[in-house]
């Protein structure tokens, strides 16, 4: 029996900024309903990879297929159609600070799906409840929220349109461990409820172990290991081992001057 078409298929993806090579031939498949977590150190190319997938950055070379449809070089109309399949949680939340919380959450419903504002507001309250936020929060402004609440509102915005693919950019960065775990649980619950495909980038191993069905490690713009989450501790890859144990000694050398 032929294998089903991957939800996201990346082949030979390359991206450089000036002389700096950030992505150096990425090959990766993500199956429908899977939760793939890409781990890697700072500057390894994680964020650039995820921005290429969603079309915020154009690759220099390579292919990105969504449901078998090539998206590199796609025209604006087709890109807009493909974007409706995506939701994204940004590292800093990226909430629109000129709009109250409910309008942030309902943004995609109103602009993308043409839902009436009154209906969208009711739907926003439901989604906010799903991420554990009280109805009063809907009327607040993003600047009035704590970091954890902003992340939850951002998660609510990402899932409000019930996307097929959700991208999570460092979902637990900047949060205390308890709030980080709350976000992890919410991500798992939301992805499972929607039956969505999830692509997460993080350097938080606790988060990766919890939300991933599969893990891939990126180093210097290449995928150097990937496999099921259960195998990450016995990968036999010295890069992965150094990263998951957070050791300064190993093949990954940080560009820092010793004191």
């Amino acid at each position, binding site marked *: 029996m032929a294998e089903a078409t991957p939800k996201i298929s990346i082949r030979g993806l390359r991206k450089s900024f000036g002389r700096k090579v950030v992505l150096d031939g990425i090959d990766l498949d993500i199956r429908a309903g899977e939760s793939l977590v890409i781990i890697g150190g700072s500057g390894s190319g994680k964020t650039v990879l995820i921005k290429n997938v*969603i079309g915020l950055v154009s690759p220099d070379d390579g292919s990105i297929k969504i449901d078998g449809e090539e998206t590199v070089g796609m025209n604006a109309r087709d890109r807009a159609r493909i974007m409706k399949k995506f939701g994204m949680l940004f590292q800093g939340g990226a909430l629109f600070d000129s709009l109250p919380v409910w309008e942030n959450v309902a943004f995609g419903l109103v602009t993308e799906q043409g839902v009436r504002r009154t209906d969208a507001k009711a739907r926003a309250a439901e989604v906010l409840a799903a991420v554990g936020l009280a109805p009063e929060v809907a009327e607040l402004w993003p600047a009035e929220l704590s970091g954890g609440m902003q992340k939850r509102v951002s998660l609510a915005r990402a899932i409000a349109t019930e996307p097929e693919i959700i991208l999570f950019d460092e979902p637990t960065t900047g949060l205390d461990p308890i709030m980080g775990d709350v976000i992890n649980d919410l991500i798992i619950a939301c992805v499972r409820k929607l039956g969505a495909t999830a692509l997460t980038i993080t350097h938080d191993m606790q988060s990766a172990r919890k939300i991933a069905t599969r893990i891939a490690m990126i180093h210097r713009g290449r995928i150097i290991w990937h496999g099921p989450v259960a195998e990450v501790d016995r990968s036999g890859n010295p890069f992965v081992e150094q990263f998951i144990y957070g050791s300064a000694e190993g093949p990954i050398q940080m560009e820092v001057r010793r004191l």
Partner: protein
Amino acid sequence: MDFIAVVGRFFLGFLATSGRIAIFAGEGLGHCVRPPFYFRLIGRQMMDIGYYSLPVVGLTALFTGMVLALQSYTGFSRFNAESAIATVVVLSVTRELAPVLAGLMIAGRVGAAMAAEIGTMRVTEQIDALTTLSTNPVKYLVVPRLLAAILMLPACVFVADIIGVLGGYLVSTTKLGFNPAVYIKNTIQYLEVIDVISGLIKAAVFGFLIALMGCYHGYNSRGGAQGVGSATTNAVVSSSILILAANYLLTEAFF
């Protein structure tokens, strides 16, 4: 040799920036006539650009009209031509001073705010977030500001015309001893519709330039708070220079 290289680099940089601004302007104007239209945002920008600029524009026009009457009197009294003061005030205000001064004041107030707001949205990934929510950032952020500025600058300048003339009237009648009825008669007698219209057309062009520069520099800001600060400065400086340059070209066209 180095000097020629520096001049060459500067010239190429100037051409590249001009090209990028032209493409940005073309994209913005193209989206102005294609749905969806964000009427709520256009309305909000009209309030910000027009209504909230009225106090500063009004005060500028009032004092300008008052000073103009005094200065005109100083010069014209030497030729016994005081009766021309009302005409000079109204023509200077409507054709030149109201559009240019209102444009410069609004460039400082609104252009800076646009660059800062859009620049902050850029560096905090809010513009990327718009894209992920299937919303074209140019259509959502730039088009409402362009349209609102093009529509509201003429409205502000029309108000400035009236207040500027009022300033001249107040000084002339209370301080220079002019007869109010004669002053009003002289104001209206030589004023033609084209004098007011040319000022309003100038204002619409200045509005376009202010919004374009504010949006362009904000949209392309990089590098956190410092980048937003630079974008704000560049927006005000470039829109002010463009206003003065465009003013000459338009004045020559209406001369």
